[in-house]
């Protein structure tokens, strides 16, 4: 049976993934919407920046975030100056890292879903007196639901499996910043293969089920909805 460090890690990981996903959907939604509608030339720069975590070693991302969030960094230092605590090795730091790390997994499916809607339904809504915000909520979001489900699931699943960024920013503090993937690493290092195996298998099974759900859902809302 998993003892308390395991349970703590599972809880922490789920909390981290859920919170990151929520933040990503709230921030990534409008960002993806803007990217899908704008004809601004600088858009490619934004797109490239968002895609960076796909190719960058997580340790690089983690390294810079650690510098920024730490006591001498731009953000951490400011917080310290305000009498608050810096964010290195904290859960908040982990959430910030995860949001950056999973950003492309949220923004890219959303952006392509918004683009697939095309102009026509939005124009039709505009001729029915629907303003821009109204159109976003009553036309764009419902028509992009397939992309929204994909974005939410992928960003959740991707955060579950995150390792490098967490290790760099979070350290390895049980109950505070020790996520599942790090605990598995620890246990393997300590030759506790049984426990590592059980956690790994659970993560494998859960991730598979999650993705299975996504793909099954996508079959039910076929492309015809665009």
């Amino acid at each position, binding site marked *: 049976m998993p003892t308390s460090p395991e349970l703590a890690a599972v809880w922490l990981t789920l909390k981290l993934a859920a919170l990151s996903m929520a933040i990503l959907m709230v921030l990534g939604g409008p960002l993806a919407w803007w990217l899908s509608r704008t004809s601004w030339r600088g858009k490619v720069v934004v797109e490239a920046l968002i895609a960076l975590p796909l190719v960058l070693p997580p340790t690089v991302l983690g390294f810079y975030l650690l510098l920024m969030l730490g006591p001498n960094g731009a953000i951490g230092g400011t917080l310290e100056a305000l009498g608050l605590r810096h964010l290195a090795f904290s859960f908040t730091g982990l959430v910030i890292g995860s949001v950056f790390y999973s950003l492309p997994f949220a923004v890219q499916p959303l952006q392509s879903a918004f683009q697939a809607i095309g102009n026509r*339904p939005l124009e039709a809504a505009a001729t029915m007196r629907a303003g821009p915000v109204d159109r976003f909520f009553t036309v764009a979001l419902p*028509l992009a639901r397939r992309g929204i489900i994909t974005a939410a699931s992928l960003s959740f699943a991707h955060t579950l499996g995150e390792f490098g960024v967490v290790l760099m920013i979070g350290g390895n503090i049980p109950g505070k910043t020790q996520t599942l993937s790090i605990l598995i690493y620890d246990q393997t290092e300590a030759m506790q293969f049984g426990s590592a195996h059980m956690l790994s298998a659970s993560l494998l099974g859960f991730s598979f089920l999650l993705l299975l759900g996504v793909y099954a859902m996508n079959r039910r809302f076929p492309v015809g909805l665009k």
Partner: protein
Amino acid sequence: MSLGVDIKANWPGFALNAAFTAPADRASALFGASGAGKSTILRAIAGLDKNITGRVEVGGEIWQDENIYCPPHKREIGYVFQDSALLPHLSVRGNLEYAQKRVAPASRRVKFGDAVDFLALGNLLMRFPDTLSGGEKQRAAIARALLTSPKLLLLDEPLSALDAGAKARILPLLQKLRREFAIPLIYVSHSIDEVARITSHMVLLANGAVLTTGPTAKILTALDQPLAHADDAGAVVDGMITAHDEKWRLSTVSFSGGRIFVPLVKLALNEPVRLRIRARDVSLALEHHGDTSILNILPVKVRKVQETGPSQSMVALDACGTALLARITHKSRDHLGLVPGKELFAQVKAVSLLV
């Protein structure tokens, strides 16, 4: 109430520079070949293209000029797209309600039930757009546009994507629509038949510019305009039903130029009707022959004669204020000695009653 448009657009391979005014209290057509700029103008009236500069004014209200750009959702229009553009995630009812909900209750002039009945959507309300035929979609789209209680209803070739059967079903509805709901409309089309049925005013466009504007009946028969030389060129005649003859199963339509018999129709006396008389169905005679099978013979005066093909001429006729066209051969023209001012008789072989 009138519509004033003076707009410019410049895109690679297409320039538009169109200025016209049209009465916005009846049905007007934007007519022209594809690429003439009709849809672009309609989109400018709706405010759907921000790249179009210029001025759009409806009934004294400025929707766009150098300083003002009223966004589309603040313009009191209804818009019927060529491809219907129903919102795919909503049922037919959902689509209609989407339109109606966004109009303040006090400004709702079209009742939900009236729009549904008029377009016969009663059995389709629960259906989703991807299960509808082209004609059903377009009927729903028209009802949806009506439910925005618009000041101006804009229709962008609403029938062009439909098969003949669906067209024949919707065309009479469009014809009745303006009278039924008292909503002025702008109708974009490249079909003479549709424009002749639906509109009373037209703006003729070619290559992004306005050729002419005026009453539909006049432009369809103006020999200096291309429509009077089209294959199915012809006149439209507004009249009213004045008699029914049960014995011979004929109805009489009276207009300024006389009377015309049509096959018996179930319409009340004094009901206004529109006739279309094609140029190829009109022949000319110097004398009023009693011994002919042709029933409809009208005294007319030649307005103008113009060659329209290697062997054929188009004759513009005046039947006491109503314009008619006749297509005859050069040979007959010279044989009859047709010159402007000459009085003779037009024999009308066929008439379509546009009800």
